[in-house]
């Protein structure tokens, strides 16, 4: 047996790699970049050590459950590596009554992720979020609709513990939601546009319900704020709702406009075109995840723990506890 393989199979090396892995996990915990070279190196070293030990240590051939446990551990490390290379994680916001068109607020994906999120389409048909006094969120129910593979319309209520799963992308709707100001933009030349300005998540950012954005072809940004005295999230419990009485404040340079609730269609002339306020709606936030290794990881983990329990059971059955 080559000396290097024997060295790699050493139990002492296992201990060293365990300590190395522990330190890498602590480093990853305190750093923003989680998948650090230290973590990759420690897991690679542990895998090599496991592989060499399984191949050379005769103890594993005598102890089948222990071998199965270590093989399952090896499979878990390999699956995590595949998962990190191919995963997709994103955050999207979809206004009530509008369709998800593949736009994300945040995206984080592995280098080998086979992009396919553009195949996913659904409409946010409305959200019901219940609160207990406090207020404390009790649950989120978000109605979504889509066209299935047979071309027929389908609807489902998603929310806590119930994601929408389309083309292996999982859309989780839970606490993240807010208000959206709907606007139309008619440029002096060109086609009219319609869109929304999603205000920061509510009630997490209750005191900062404002956002700045730029209109197409307009260099100077526009600032819009929503002001209200209502309780969209009732202090004594109830459902999240749109404020009944509110004011939308818009600023462009030194100019300032105020639009009251119910003034949908109010127009503001700006350099380059006309901005129309169309109304107030809610937006729903979705946590999006894609990781095809998940069922395999679960399978490998269950095999690992069953094999470990089997190994200890066999070992301890040889001598009673009360001997």
């Amino acid at each position, binding site marked *: 047996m080559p000396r290097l393989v024997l060295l790699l199979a050493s139990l002492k090396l*296992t201990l060293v790699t365990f300590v190395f892995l522990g330190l890498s996990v602590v480093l990853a915990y305190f750093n923003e970049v989680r998948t650090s070279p230290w973590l990759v190196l420690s897991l690679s070293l542990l895998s090599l050590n496991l592989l060499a030990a399984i191949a050379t240590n005769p103890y594993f051939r005598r102890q089948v459950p222990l071998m199965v446990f270590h093989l399952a551990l090896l499979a878990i490390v390999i699956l995590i590596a595949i998962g990190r290379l191919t995963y997709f994680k994103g955050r999207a916001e979809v206004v009530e009554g509008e369709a998800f068109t593949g736009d994300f607020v945040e995206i984080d994906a592995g280098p080998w992720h086979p992009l396919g999120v553009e195949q996913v389409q659904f409409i946010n048909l409305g959200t019901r979020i219940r609160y207990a006094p*406090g207020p404390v969120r009790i649950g989120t129910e978000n109605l979504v609709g889509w066209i299935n593979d047979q071309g027929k319309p389908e609807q489902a209520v998603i929310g806590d513990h119930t994601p929408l799963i389309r083309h292996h992308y999982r859309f*989780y709707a839970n606490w993240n939601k807010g208000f959206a100001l709907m606007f139309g933009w008619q440029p002096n030349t060109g086609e009219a546009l319609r869109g929304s300005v999603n205000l920061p998540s509510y009630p997490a950012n209750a005191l900062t319900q404002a956002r700045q954005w730029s209109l197409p072809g307009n260099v100077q940004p526009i600032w819009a704020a929503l002001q209200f005295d209502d309780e969209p999230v009732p202090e004594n419990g109830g459902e999240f709702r749109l404020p009944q009485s509110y004011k939308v404040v818009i600023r462009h340079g030194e100019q300032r406009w105020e639009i009251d609730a119910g003034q949908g269609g109010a127009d503001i002339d700006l350099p380059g075109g006309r901005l129309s306020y169309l109304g107030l709606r809610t937006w729903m936030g979705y946590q999006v995840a894609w990781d095809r290794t998940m069922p395999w990881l679960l399978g490998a983990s269950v095999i690992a723990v069953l094999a470990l329990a089997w190994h*200890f059971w066999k*070992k301890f059955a040889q001598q009673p506890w009360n001997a």
Partner: protein
Amino acid sequence: MDLIGELRILWVAVVAYVLAGSISIFGVLLKKRPERTVLGLMLLGLALHTAAIALRWQRLDHGPFVTMFEILSSNVWSLMLAFSIAYWRLPSIRPVAAIIMPILFTMMGWLMTVSPGETHLPPTYHTVWLFIHIGFGKVFLGAVLVAVGLSGVILLRRDGRADGWFSRLPDSERLSELSYRCMAIGFVFETLMLIAGAIWAQDAWGRYWDWDPLETWAFITWIIVGISLHARLTFRLSPRLGAWLVIGVFVSAFLTFFGVPFISQTPHQGAV
């Protein structure tokens, strides 16, 4: 029954535990064997504590999983249950109660100082995986606690007087072997706890792992348990060194279970 009634029952339970612990400590010091009384008081305390938790559960319509008071109370209950089973089934190690009970007294004292205030169960906690995850975690901590008791005896035996107090217990090699068994059970159940936690996290927050303080420290504890089990095999450690490793695991597990809630608003950061 209201909060006051629930707390009265809990306090009576704590008194029963303290009496059981005190009698077992005096039993070791005076080399007496009040084992039936100790077991009886532990079981009485457990019955009353179960009633207190059940009443709170019925009143709030959720289990003891959210506030520090609930986490401490349910852990004192599960640790007492784990130790009572060991006390009942393994008569030869009963004097370790003199080491384990003071650890539990500390937790009971802490429990008495935190607010028993009420709160709602976050929507992400409405899942069977919460019970499975927490159940596995409690078995893990219970097994480690018994191992700590055995390890404490091994470490105290260096002192001549303490050696006399624990002379009725098996030799340190045997205690070390039993502590290894407890750690092995703990390792299996901590692995199960991590798997169940990952399933719950995927189900509730759309990720099975997100480096939140509790999951990270639970994994670090898992690594430390792995190191301690491997070290025994690799170096054929002396009972004393093995005992120190068990103490290390317990400190890590204790900080994970009861220290992390201090740096995280909910048991799992972002849980709501």
